[in-house]
């Protein structure tokens, strides 16, 4: 089962919102309503780049109960492997694309008495949909949003206008204004759930602070933007299909396998959901595990690998595919 059924969409609006950030609006080409979703969900956007299919995960930021369209915001990353460059440079209004059904790996804990949201940069996007849902359902929330500079911070004014300065606080790095994480985490009512999305260093810092302050692990939630890292090219042998696949410098194993016409399972393409877990038949070399799904013991055992983000260095890698 690979990825699930895709929804045909038309790009009906492209809006520049901040430095290197654009918003894309997708409406269904078949005229049917978009499925409702839950705040925190993402979709996989399929891009046809001259016959080469790229697939990236983007958080949905439109209102979860608005089935007229989906909206995402894309940061044009400096070292783009091609996905965000394609979205920024090639995608025009009127283009036909495909998106997956929504998948949520960053679901709010509905039992939360209060939801404390911490965002860094483009990590704001899943929270925009989440706040819409909290607001509609009458849930208590508070957003702390760190931006590097004013021109890079997307949606700051919109969010303050929508929810008020009591519920949305902006911290600008360039103005030496930082989120007082330790103080915040120390002063929350019992039953608060925390959600953090942003750069890896920020996520690690917030989670560590939480644990040190005595927060239960179950109340700390995070979503990382993992993507396949570039690395040395290598080859893999697929034992079931009897094929050899070459994985290029900027390519992931999953992408190389798909390009070879082999249907491999996937959902998040970010090393989090576990769907593309694959058994290793033989490994003469070193697996470079980049996912957050496998346990440390599983990684050390070398028997499993996540195709979407992990790599390999060495002589031979045989996978059960």
């Amino acid at each position, binding site marked *: 089962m690979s990825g699930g*059924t895709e929804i045909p969409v038309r790009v009906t609006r492209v809006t520049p919102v901040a430095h290197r950030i654009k918003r894309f609006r997708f409406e269904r080409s078949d005229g049917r309503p978009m499925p409702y979703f839950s705040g925190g969900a993402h979709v996989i956007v399929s891009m046809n780049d001259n016959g080469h299919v790229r697939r990236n995960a983007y958080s949905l930021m439109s209102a979860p109960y608005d089935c007229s369209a989906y909206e995402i915001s894309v940061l044009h990353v400096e070292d783009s492997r091609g996905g965000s460059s394609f979205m920024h440079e090639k995608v025009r209004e009127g283009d036909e694309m495909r998106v997956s059904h929504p998948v949520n790996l960053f679901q709010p804990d*509905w039992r939360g008495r209060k939801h404390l949201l911490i965002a860094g940069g483009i990590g704001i996007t899943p929270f925009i949909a989440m706040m819409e849902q909290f607001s509609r359902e009458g849930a208590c929330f508070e957003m702390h949003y760190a931006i590097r500079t004013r021109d890079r911070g997307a949606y700051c004014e919109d969010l303050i206008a929508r929810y008020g300065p009591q519920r949305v606080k902006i911290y600008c790095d360039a103005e030496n204004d930082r989120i007082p994480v330790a103080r915040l985490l120390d002063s929350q009512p019992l039953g608060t759930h925390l959600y953090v999305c942003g750069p890896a260093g920020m996520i690690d810092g917030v989670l560590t602070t939480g644990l040190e302050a005595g927060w239960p692990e179950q109340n700390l939630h995070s979503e990382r933007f993992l993507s396949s890292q570039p690395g040395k090219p290598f080859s893999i042998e697929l034992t079931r299909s009897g094929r050899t696949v070459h994985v290029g410098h900027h390519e992931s194993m999953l992408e190389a396998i798909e390009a070879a016409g082999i249907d491999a399972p996937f959902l998040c393409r970010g090393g989090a959901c576990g769907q593309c877990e694959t058994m290793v038949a033989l490994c003469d070399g070193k697996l470079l595990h980049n996912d957050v799904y496998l346990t440390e013991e599983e990684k050390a055992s070398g028997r499993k690998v996540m195709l979407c983000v992990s790599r390999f260095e060495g002589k031979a890698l045989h996978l059960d595919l």
Partner: protein
Amino acid sequence: MAIAFKQETFRDDFSYRNSPENIRRFPFPFDRDEYMYAVNMEPHLKGQKGTAFESLIDVDEHYVAEMHDRALVLKEDPLRYQALPHMMTAQWDTLELLMEEQAAGFPEHFTLIRNGDQWRWINRPLGIDDTFTFGDRSTLPYEPLEYITRQAQGDFCIVDQRDGNLWMDAGMVTTQADWSLDFDIGMNFMEWHGPVPLAHQMGVFDRALKFLLNLQQGKPTRRFNWTMTINPRLDTSPENYHKWGPDRASVTPENVGEKVHLRVEVQSLWRLPRSNAILFVIRCYLMNMNELVTVPKWARRFPRVLSTLPPELIDYKGLTRYRQTTIDWLSRFDDGAPTSPGTFPD
């Protein structure tokens, strides 16, 4: 074609019977002559007309009588319906799903008219015509899950997803094979499957949980479960064990055909959109042995399956006292001829 709903009982005089057409649409679960234990999940897709899969939420000739029986169970024991407070969004998701599927599958019996958040629901078999505001619980006579599951065949559990596990946090359970929502509420997937023999050792639940955690919106899945019940009793709950437990000692070679029922559950699992919870539908079908043997393929296959059951399962399913009597009775209908592949009648 409109369904002719039957007036019948699942208690006291047990007047429940299947019409010949309904026997042929029975979801017979065995696709081979011996018993196999497996994570038997398959996509929940629509099947042929005239089968239990013609619609993804099935309605059949027993609908009205089952809803009446559910009302009786709830009157005696309101705790058969429970929902923890954080499941309200999932309740609305479920109401939407059941209304949409019933209206789409059986438009002559059910109609849903949506105008923004103003919804009108017409249920002709039960004589209901209600207008309400979607999302506003005060506009319905019950909580949304209780409201809609008083109008839908099958038991319904909503499981919340968190901490890499699934939690039984809401449900309507009145047609169960000896388990209790009141006991299991708040438990996680591994806890509520605790009593099932063999499967834990086989790693079945680890794999099933992993699969369900990634269940996708728009791609429901299903599996079959089965047991046997003496008399066509829907409510075989632990709470009422004193009423149905002793029935198991009442089977004789003379009454097998009438008393012994194959009880099949079509369990479908749906990822709910707004809550990201999973709806678990356990739809129960009952058919007595007289009815079963009217389909020659099933008459041959069922005694063969019963003969190959592992002892742990005979005990777990509570078949010990009457399994052999039933095999002996059924064997008269098994001439030893080979059976065709698949589950459907020839």
